[in-house]
């Protein structure tokens, strides 16, 4: 029985190959020279430098590890005890608890997440580390019980009685008789719990607050483009885990040599915890370097009432040093939180979460204004407003710039490969080129109901904010036809890598992303159809429930300065609202002088911004699923 057959060796080898192929890929791409996640362009350590320079990443690693370790320990103990005690309960209760336990496992995470968000908000519990931990313990326990229960079932029910007949107390019976028998179940339960906690995004996103973010939140909110530092971060985690495993496996061997055997399994888990805590401590040392000196903080408190403000914006949407520079200059602390979409941000605002500055998009700002959730800005505190370029002043949703200060703006257009696509076709057909059978199977469509219906409306000569049912149905037919005849590929951020790699001929792309594509692939051109397109604006706003509005004004004013705006534009690549920065980026030969995507069309009458219409949005969202879903 013990001899290893060739067959089982092959199975093990293939298993490991399967599991580690993507891991190997991640490690290789963490050394990639370019931003691409699919094409390796050369060796570089830049993502590691960026990762170590980014304190939010390091903090996220620590929160993730600490939460995962505590949640695993607590849920394993509670889950095991509950599973054991349940065996003594009535069958009905057992069944009931088991079925209820399935709920968090079974429900889409978003359902559990939203319900927890509402629950914590209803109880007015301040969100952060505590709520995150409770939520993780909550969804981890069922996994532990699911692993322990089958092992308990196969246990002889008379074992405990026998032990107690022989004089054991219930506690002794449990620790000495039951636990050793079900140990494999406990271990696998703990492993699954750890995995679930370590990798959780949606629940974590909705129950956290006050700047507490785990790795998953960081990764998923990179909505404006995935930052390859995440590969470097993953590699770092792999190295750390390997180290921990190494320690866990080596220490008992060393100890065995000096002592004897006995209870080494339990010891192993103790070492695992010690090692994990050590790693967390080392990480903490790296992350929390220096803090602003005291006297300046006191001065800031004197001036603004508090030295801390909360900023809420899409992921990967800040210049590399902007926050640090602002903190140093004003002696304050900025808590940064990221969101993945305007709607995710809106859900948290509705639950009552307070932020000082938020950066949503045009239509969402309109909604927030309608709901009276925004403060009117004190423009005397934002003298730098005069630095804005005229193109972003007096926007339709905020005609006198009283509520919103532009942060980035841009348009939507077509990126096409001028080697394989006749520029004549694109220019004469506009959006209609996406239905030109010549390019069937060679197009990327941006997977969002807003942008897709926008191009259909525009192609048909309607306003993209129409509520006319005939026009909506016309656009729906237009898209259905496109789906049928062209079988396009629907993507979101992957469009950037895909077009850089030249995988498709034509793509619908945001101008900021087009800038990147054109920069990396010379065969690509950008075109804004004459039927009109979407011009979007992301702006800084101050909610009514802001806790530090005066620092919020200072921050907005700072973000408008040449230095901050330049840093933002340089890092993110979107079009800057600062007139001087915009001019420089658009004319500098080394930057975007040759790049037609960087300068959005201004003042073209067919172009529009989205307005807020919730009913229309629900309708379009449902229709969009019907466009894509049929096979």
């Amino acid at each position, binding site marked *: 029985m013990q001899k290893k057959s060739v067959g*089982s060796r092959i199975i093990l080898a293939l*298993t490991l190959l399967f*599991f580690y192929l993507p891991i190997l890929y991640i490690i290789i791409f963490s050394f990639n020279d370019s931003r691409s996640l699919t094409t390796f362009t050369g060796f570089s350590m830049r993502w590691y430098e960026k990762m170590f320079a980014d304190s939010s990443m390091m903090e996220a690693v620590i929160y993730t590890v600490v939460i995962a370790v505590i949640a695993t320990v607590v849920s394993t103990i509670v889950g095991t005890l509950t599973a054991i005690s349940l065996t003594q309960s009535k069958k009905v209760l057992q069944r009931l608890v088991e079925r209820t336990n399935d709920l968090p496992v079974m429900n889409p995470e978003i359902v559990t997440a939203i319900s927890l968000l509402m629950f914590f908000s209803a109880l007015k519990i301040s969100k952060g580390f505590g709520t995150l931990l409770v939520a993780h313990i909550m969804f981890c326990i069922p996994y532990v019980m699911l692993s322990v229960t089958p092992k308990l079932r196969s246990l002889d029910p008379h074992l405990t009685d026998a032990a107690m007949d022989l004089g054991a107390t219930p506690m002794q019976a449990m620790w000495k008789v039951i636990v050793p028998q079900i140990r494999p179940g406990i271990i696998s339960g703990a492993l699954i719990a750890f995995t679930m906690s370590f990798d959780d995004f949606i629940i974590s996103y909705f129950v956290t607050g006050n700047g507490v973010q785990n790795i998953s939140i960081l990764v998923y909110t990179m909505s404006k483009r995935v930052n390859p530092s995440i590969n470097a971060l993953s590699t770092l985690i792999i190295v750390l885990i390997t180290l921990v495993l190494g320690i866990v496996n080596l220490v008992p061997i060393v100890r065995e040599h000096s002592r004897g055997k006995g209870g080494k399994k339990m010891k192993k888990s103790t070492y695992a915890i010690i090692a994990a805590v050590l790693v967390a401590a080392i990480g903490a040392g790296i992350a929390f370097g220096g803090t602003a000196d005291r006297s300046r903080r006191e001065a800031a408190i004197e001036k603004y009432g508090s030295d801390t403000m909360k900023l809420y914006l899409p992921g990967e949407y800040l210049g590399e040093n902007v926050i640090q520079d602002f903190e140093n200059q004003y002696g304050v602390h900025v808590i940064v939180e990221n969101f993945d979409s305007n709607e995710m941000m809106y859900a948290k605002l509705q639950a009552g979460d307070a932020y000082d500055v938020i950066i949503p998009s045009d239509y969402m700002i309109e909604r927030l204004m309608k709901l009276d959730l925004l403060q009117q800005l004190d423009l005397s505190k934002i003298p730098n407003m005069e630095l804005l370029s005229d193109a972003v002043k007096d926007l339709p949703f905020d005609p006198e710039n009283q509520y919103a200060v532009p942060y980035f703006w841009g348009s939507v257009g077509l990126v096409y490969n001028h080697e394989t696509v006749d520029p004549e076709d694109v220019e004469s057909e506009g959006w209609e080129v996406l239905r030109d059978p010549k390019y069937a199977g060679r197009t990327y469509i941006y997977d969002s109901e807003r942008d897709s219906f926008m191009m259909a409306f525009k192609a048909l000569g309607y306003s993209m904010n129409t509520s006319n049912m005939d026009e909506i149905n016309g656009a729906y037919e237009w898209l259905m036809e496109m789906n049928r005849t062209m079988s396009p590929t629907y993507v979101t951020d992957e469009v950037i890598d895909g077009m850089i790699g030249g995988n498709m001929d034509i793509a619908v792309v945001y101008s900021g992303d087009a800038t990147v594509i054109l920069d990396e692939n010379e065969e690509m051109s950008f075109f804004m159809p004459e039927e009109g397109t979407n011009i979007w604006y992301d702006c800084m706003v101050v909610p009514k429930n802001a806790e530090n509005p005066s620092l919020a004004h200072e921050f907005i004013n700072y973000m408008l300065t040449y230095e901050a705006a330049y840093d933002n534009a340089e890092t993110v690549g979107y079009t800057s609202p600062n007139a001087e920065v915009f001019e420089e980026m658009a004319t500098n030969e080394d930057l975007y002088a040759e790049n037609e995507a960087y300068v959005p069309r201004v003042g073209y009458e067919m172009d529009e911004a989205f307005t807020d219409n919730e009913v229309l949005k629900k309708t379009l969202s449902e229709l969009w699923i019907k466009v894509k879903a049929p096979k």
Partner: protein
Amino acid sequence: MKQFRTITWGYVAWLAALVIAPMLLILLYAFTVAGNDVVTTRFSLQNFYRFVSDPVFVEVLLRSLYIALITTVICIALGYPIAYVIAKLPEKSNVLMILLITMPTWINMLVRTYAWMGILQSGTVVNTILSWFGVGPVKMIHTSFAVILGMVYNFIPFMILQIHTSLAKMDKSLLEAASDLGASRAQAFLRVTLPLSLPGMISGITLVFLPAVSSFFIPKLLGGGQYVLVGNVIESQFLTAGDWNFGSAISLIMAIIIMLSMWLTRKVDVQPESGKE
């Protein structure tokens, strides 16, 4: 062991507060229409009707169940032999293998899925290998194959863990007894090992099937936006359309279907229990 009852009731209270109470809110949303404002809501079955009456939604739901089922079957077919081989290893390498299999799951799911996207993109590793055999290039990204591969990769560790748990520490004298009584190795496996590992397998099915039905990142990235599964629909109702009522109703419909299928699966579980002793 009466003192353990306290623990049980403590957990029931915890479940009531953190699982049941929030679920009631979802129930409330599912059976009402109009805004996210409780004041203006009114009772309605409209959300359910909207879903059931539309063939596209029903098709999406069936497709999701089908993909999840295939994923589960593959996870058992591949996971069982792997777990079996691991369980037979000497204890030290046994623990190590289990850790090696769990470790990749500690890397962010999105990052791992991005890696698969790169691997499956045409012109890379797999197609190079295929071309040695004169096959390909095959389009792999944005296909059912890619989605199922992604799901199996993501969920199979749980299946392996669960089956392994029930195989580990199995009383080996049972197998000896079986062979003493004249059973062949195949018979011993079918009559002894397999039934004993069934509870673990059912836990494994729970851990693979349930999350597979509602997963949405994997289909979105590996299947492309056109690969709509019910998880994507629910997610978009909550996060893009802002229609929480409809989203709640869909997840409720899904929950009921899943509960029924799990109830059927667990019926199988009763056999070894009663067959014991």
